[in-house]
């Protein structure tokens, strides 16, 4: 996984609450056996009309936000389906950080598996950041180690993040590799369980 340390980039304000993963990446793009190439489906129904032409009113189609790497959104971002295609599509599009007042659980977890940084800030702060992002061509600076977002106006805002998850992003750790260091304990656990719930073992 690509580590996440610092990020300087444009931010795009998506002023919508309850953005669900069906919106982030609609179902027709889930029929893939790859992780890459999902950018084309990101926010598809919001970005394109029925004929497949870009909708000029949608923020991600506006020139001033081209190349943005930060997405600022409303409450409960990423709710709904567990599809990890959502963070994959955001990353494939070039977005590396999402800032919102709150995130849905599964989406939040999925971010950390993929080097996408979810930043939770209070509603008024998110609103303020959205205002500053408007018009594009401003740079936001995010420093994960320091847990700060520096806005274009120079204000520095701190955010909370779980220490373990922060470490994982900073180092780009492979969770499976980490867990496999507990292989002995997993084996011991399985042995004990085979005695206490033997009927679960009986299956061939």
């Amino acid at each position: 996984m690509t580590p996440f340390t610092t990020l300087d980039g444009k931010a795009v304000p998506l002023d919508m609450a309850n953005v669900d993963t069906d919106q982030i990446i609609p179902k027709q793009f889930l029929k893939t056996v790859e992780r890459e190439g999902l950018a084309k489906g990101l926010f598809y129904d919001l970005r394109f009309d029925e004929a497949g032409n870009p909708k000029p009113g949608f923020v991600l189609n506006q020139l001033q936000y081209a190349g943005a790497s930060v997405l600022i959104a409303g409450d409960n971002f990423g709710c709904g389906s567990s599809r990890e295609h959502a963070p994959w599509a955001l990353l494939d599009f070039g977005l590396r950080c999402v800032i919102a007042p709150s995130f849905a659980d599964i989406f939040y977890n999925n971010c950390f598996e993929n080097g996408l940084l979810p930043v939770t800030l209070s509603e008024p702060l998110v609103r303020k950041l959205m205002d500053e992002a408007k018009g594009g061509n401003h740079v936001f600076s995010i420093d994960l180690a320091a847990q700060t977002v520096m806005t274009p106006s120079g204000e520095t805002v701190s955010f909370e993040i779980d220490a373990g998850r922060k470490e994982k992003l900073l180092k780009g750790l492979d969770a499976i590799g980490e867990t496999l260091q507990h292989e002995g304990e997993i084996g011991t656990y399985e042995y004990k369980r085979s005695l206490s719930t033997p009927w679960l073992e009986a299956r061939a």
Partner: protein
Amino acid sequence: MSGKTLYDKIWDAHVVANEANGETVLYIDLHLIHEVTSPQAFAGLRAHGRAVRRPDRTLAVADHNVPTEGQARGVGAVADPEARLQLETLGRNVKANGIEFFPMGDIRNGIVHVVGPEQGRTQPGMTIVCGDSHTSTHGAFGALAHGIGTSEVEHVLATQTLRQRKAKNLRVTVDGELHAGVGAKDIALAVIGEIGTAGGTGYVIEYAGSAVRGLSMEGRMTLCNLTIEAGAKAGLVAPDDKTFDYLQGRPASPKGGAWEMAYSYWKTFFSDPDAKFDREIRLKAQDIPPLVTWGTSPEDVVPVTGSVPDTAAIADETKRAQVQRALDYMGLASGQRIDEARIDRVFIGSCTNSRIEDLRAAAEVARGRKVAAHVQAMVVPGSGLVKEQAEAEGLDAIFIEAGFDWREPGCSMCLAMNPDKLMPGERCASTSNRNFEGRQGRGGRTHLMSPAMAAAAAVAGRIVDVRSLA
């Protein structure tokens, strides 16, 4: 020291290791997989030269993008090449790793959350995960069950564990008697309407109270299924005699002496009387009417006898704009009665409401009636076995006679990855779980409701109170 909740007990029984960073390596008893969220996980394993640790604790089905007709012709006959590739990829992956698999067309195949319980693979006190958010369904058996992303699918395949942080405990108690025509779906929608789609975030919800005890296993599955729509990690109902009766004689249920042993183990899974919950919510069953959703979020609920929100009455500007946007999308006028909404399609199915009891409830309404001329209605049983059972009871004949389409099992129009989908602007009475924009087809308008209400809507050609059908 206060007692433990049901969630605490299941958690404690599965701790393999506690990490310094606050994560717990939690053992997973059962891992359900399907074609859409597993291919990248298997590819990841291969790339790292890792094996599936416990194929025997893994079960695969093909459900998300299978067509609901002509399944006997096999995967090769699936028209959509991308869906076919996913189905074939799953077939290859399970074979290479020795995982039990019910392929498309096998009578045991069906929606993953219908199949697990039906086979007896889902049992009390277990930890269960699947790359699908409605895994919360299995909580109906007193199992800790939740959805995971594909990286976590890979993690579980490789280690049979998951790195987790403990959630908080929320108890929802529903006491009293439900009115006739009101069921599990209405309780679930009432809870979501009460706490909102993010109201459960960070919690595991335990459902308790006499109205919950009174629900059948199918009803409890519907209730736990929709827990994710309240944002909670998982939903739980403590196991009781109904649970044990349901499990008796299922293919994967323990038999003989093992049953006795399992039975005494399962009975330890309940919240201690002095257990502390971080939050409590109480609802009275008699206050819950038949509910339908009017908007594009499952929290947008309204009694079927009520009206959609009147935007003029909403003071908060952001909120008003949100409601207006949802009404526009849904093609509804501010403040209009919900039972004036004319429908085009009806979908009875999905892991929320496609079990035998759901089909019985819908058939009861459909019996001797006709689907309105302008409505296209379909019934998609949750599994091949549900379909077989329904046919043995003659439910298929009732539906067909009434003008419903009787389909083969799968997720179908719940997420519309297969050919079953809404056309732009079409309005659908649906027993599924998500009314998001475009969920059932681009531009499609979804109203969530119970199977009985959906069948009533099919007959009336509009949203209607099932209790008012002549």
